[in-house]
């Protein structure tokens, strides 16, 4: 496990600055999510960390758990899973993993045994001796994960690891990541929000190449706690009218309605909650969900990005 220290990292393409000076510390052993809309510079940042893209300026250094600081070539300590991992499709999965393992500095024997282990872990043992060209998207993603992990890096970088997968593939990859959590420092970019909520400790929100908000997810949550009530109702005839009438309730400052749900921003949680529940009782509203004071990541995301 290692922590990663990013200082003044910048990337410009001609006159366009994709990443503005970025300062960030990725905590050891934690899972950090890099969030942001498309074009926010998440992938560019990850590419700079892996060395595939040379930064215009700035430095990235790594501190291992033994306290050693690495400043130049981080690649022996990093694993990287790109958005759509690429392989020599004419090779078999096993051949590819052995090849990559040897390139990572493993001996022939070690590479062979690790390749076997990771094929097992990622559930590819059965397809190991088939050509990669015939693999499905989910299998490629899992092979990519095995490839990233084969030399036991201390930090794993993932670029939208599941956004291209179907729900089953998503589950598979997420549970693999879940099982690695705690043993390795994870940094991944994504715009699929709910997976961040279940996996991540820290959050970095990027917009237009800069960090707009960062911190521990639990802290960020607490910060905004007590300001939002989310309710969801079952369909009924005057639903629309009723939902929009909620803004008349005491101490509600803003309502956001989408379909069956309404997010009510308030400056006095207790008062608003009382009023709302009475209203529900009085009108016999078929309430299906009631969340008080827990901001969802999506709300945070929208709030920060729309700003």
């Amino acid at each position: 496990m290692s922590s990663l220290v990013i200082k003044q990292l910048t990337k410009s393409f001609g006159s366009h600055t994709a990443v503005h000076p970025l300062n960030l510390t990725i905590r050891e052993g934690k899972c950090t999510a890099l969030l942001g809309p498309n074009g926010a510079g998440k992938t560019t940042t990850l590419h700079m960390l892996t060395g595939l893209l040379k930064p215009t300026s700035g430095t990235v250094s790594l501190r291992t758990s033994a306290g050693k600081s690495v400043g130049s070539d981080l690649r022996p300590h990093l694993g990287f899973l790109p958005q759509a991992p690429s392989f020599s499709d004419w090779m078999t999965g096993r051949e590819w993993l052995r090849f990559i393992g040897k390139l990572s500095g493993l001996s022939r024997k070690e590479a062979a045994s690790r390749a076997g282990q990771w094929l097992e872990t990622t559930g590819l043992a059965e397809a190991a001796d088939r050509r990669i060209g015939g693999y499905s998207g989910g299998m490629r993603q899992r092979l990519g994960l095995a490839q990233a992990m084969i030399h036991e890096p201390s930090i794993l970088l993932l670029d939208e690891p599941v956004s291209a997968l179907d729900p089953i593939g998503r589950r598979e990859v997420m549970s693999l990541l879940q099982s690695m959590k705690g043993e390795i420092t994870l940094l991944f970019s994504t715009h699929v929000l709910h997976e961040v909520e279940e996996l991540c400790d820290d959050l970095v929100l990027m917009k237009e190449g800069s960090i707009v908000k960062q911190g521990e997810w639990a802290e960020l949550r607490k910060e905004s706690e007590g300001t939002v009530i989310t309710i969801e109702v079952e369909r009924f005839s005057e639903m629309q009218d009723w939902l929009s009438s909620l803004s008349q309730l005491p101490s509600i400052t803003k309502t956001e309605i989408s379909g069956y749900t309404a997010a009510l921003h308030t400056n006095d949680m207790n008062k608003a909650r009382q009023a709302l529940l009475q209203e529900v009782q009085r009108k016999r509203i078929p309430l299906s969900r009631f969340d008080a004071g827990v901001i969802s990541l999506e709300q945070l995301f929208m709030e920060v990005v729309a700003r």
Partner: protein
Amino acid sequence: MRNTLILFQKEWMELIRHYKWLWVPLVFLLLGISQPITMKFLPDILASTGSLPEGTMIQLPTPTSGEILGQVLSQFNTVGILLLVLATMGTISSEVRSGVAGAILTKPVSPASYLAAKWAAAMCLTIPAFSIGYAGAWYYTVQLFEPIPALAVLTAAIVALGWFCFIVTLAVVMSLWLASGAAAAFSTLAIALLFGLINLLWKDSYLLNPSKLIEGAQYMLMEQPPSFSVGVTVFMTLLLSGLLFAIGLWSATKRQSWLPADKGSY
């Protein structure tokens, strides 16, 4: 060094799996043996086409073995070069585009060893292909015409091979510099053509013109003294190839991005 070897093994496996190592030497062999056979039966072929008036006597001087092998080199210099360039044109650019180069270079691999392995693999295609084709030509020429001193044949082969290796080195480096394989092939062939043109226009160009090696080899095969110092040209070709490769290594190390060009911005 170890990584270069591992990467080379992968390249080698690819040459075999994609049958490149089969069809490129095969075409060279075909080119090589067709020349002496055609020359042998040319009078019969001309006679049997029947387009000549009755009673025409065909008097062709019998070519020497040296001339025939010289013609084989000319064949290699056109069709053979085209083939080799087409076989190596995308060796790096296609892997950059597909992302395989990125996958390799996120591991602790230096871009220099990546290029070196690519180059070594290209050489392992070029040298056997040329040798097999040339050996076939030699065999049939000796069978169908008169014997020819082995020393002249072998030195001529080595001299001529210098030109092919130079062009293939150029093709590999071009596939590093240019994003598309077609562009790499085109520019390599254009440079090869340019050297040929310089050769025609400026007879003292042997000082800096690797394409002169073919001409030098042809002189050797005909056992005539060359009109220029072949040794100097060999030396200059080695120097030029080395320089080209060194610039390639340097630019690979300095390269800003190993990502596909259209995916680089975000």
